[in-house]
């Protein structure tokens, strides 16, 4: 049983899609094709998977893609301040070596 989902490549990163797919690697196999403007995902399920399970796995996959995509972009955007605070945290431990 195969299901195809298309993600807009301007909205979602393929890294995020891969990470999301990996989390469901025990539920479906996936093939990902990025043609520049669209990322087409073909999901194949085990023969024993029911209709309602497929629906739930697909929904879960879409949610996970969004989650991973946001994690990626927000983490990148906030790198400066995060590193500043963590460096300050370790500043007196003697563990940070000057490069």
């Amino acid at each position, binding site marked *: 049983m195969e299901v195809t989902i298309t993600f807009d490549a301007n909205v979602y990163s393929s890294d995020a899609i891969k990470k999301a797919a990996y989390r469901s690697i025990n539920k479906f196999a996936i093939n990902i094709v990025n043609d520049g403007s669209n990322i087409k995902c073909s999901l194949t399920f085990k023969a024993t998977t029911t209709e309602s399970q497929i629906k739930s796995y697909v929904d879960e996959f879409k949610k996970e893609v969004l989650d991973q995509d946001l*994690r990626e972009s*927000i983490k990148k955007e*906030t790198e400066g301040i995060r590193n500043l605070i*963590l460096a300050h*945290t370790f500043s*007196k431990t003697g*563990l940070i070596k000057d490069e």
Partner: protein
Amino acid sequence: MSNFQTIEFYKNKKKEYSLLPFRFECLGENNYVVTNLAGEHLIITRDALENLVRHKLNSSSADYVNLRAKHFLTDDKTQIAKELLSIKLRTKYSVLSEFTGLHIFVVSLRCEHSCPYCQVSRQSDDKVKFDMSTEVADRSIDLALRSPSKNIKIEFQGGEPLLNFQLIKYIVLASKTRGGDKNISFVIATNLALINEEILIFCKEHKILISTSLDGPKEIHNTNRPRPKGNSYEKAVEGIQLAREYLGIDSVSALMTTTQNSLGHVKEIIDEYLKYSFLGIFLRPLSPYGFALKTKTYAAYNADVWHEFYMEGLEYIIDLNRKGIKFREYYTSTILTKMFTSQEVGYVDLMSPSGIGIAAVVYNYDGSVYASDESRMLAEMGDNSFELGNVLINSYEDIFLNPKLLDPIEESFAFSVPMCNECAFEAYCGADPVFHHGVFKDFIGRKPDSEFCKRNMKIFKYLIKRMEHDPYVKKLFMSWAQPNA
């Protein structure tokens, strides 16, 4: 007199203003709470919020004046906001570099109680197998004193730590000798069933504090905390009174654990704390670890039910205060400190970056080192994700630069994760990668699914709304917020 200008003369000349970083959250009924970089908050209407963001807010309006005074916007009238905000932020983060302040020594896993919610502990007489050795203790002391923090708190836990009192004595004396100019304080977390004069004399000499469990009146307490003879409550109460005779009333504190049993009885539990002259209570939610999960007691309730319990308790405590009884709720106080001051209380579960390792660390009886108490509990369930090494094998560097510590701290950093990044309450909340890993197998989880998030959001909104129209509660909460009170 013609020499004096009117106030109009001193208002901002240009009608433009710049926004300073802020976040917002809907409180319902057309009201929004806005929070600035330092975590200060204001409540404004939806219209005012929209005008603010679209740069259409009228500079003569009360909202404008309030927002400018509280550093949500800046205009040609005043430029001092940025320096004040940076001071507040620096103050808030400054204490992080003190690094690990709380060092938990699990001196024995043995215990004569068998509380269903306990994550650890063994009913056993096998001291060799389940007691911490001197060698492990020595090495752990070295690591504890290696922390740059000027103030160190050593907390003895278990099982029941008094079952290995000899080692407690050893650790107290050794750490004082080797402590240099560090300020070391001690606390024993004990069920008090085994407390005696000899122990108390030692505690008095070394100013050791006692933290015990009191889950409520006798029926609740004994049901929660079974022991042979079924008299945990009686022993605890007896122990509290005896300990106070030697150590003074402020040297004994109590913690409660909420179970299915406790629900619906929050007033009785608080009354019990009043009966024994405690000045406050920590209404803790049940953690989803250990036997609690195994015995499905965690599944027994969710955030909503606990929230009812908490709110009823909090309202009851507010009423008590109105009647002149000074009593506070400690989880609320921790949150209020973040709302009203730039101080950090150092409560591990409500910190971002997460307090695991960097605020607290656990040296287990067998030498294994855990990033927090919850990390140890997770390990008991077979998940060693937060085990950082062993005191007998690993160096300070191995342990505190272990990716098993650094990765969760970095990845769960609240400002860097979805939803928390734009949450109005991020300054009041925490990261808790251990909880999320325990439930979701992921340091971050998806916050809409997270009980941690739901619970805290509810509390934040509740506290903010509660204060808004009740000056008594606002004043009460402001006094609870002071970290040294």
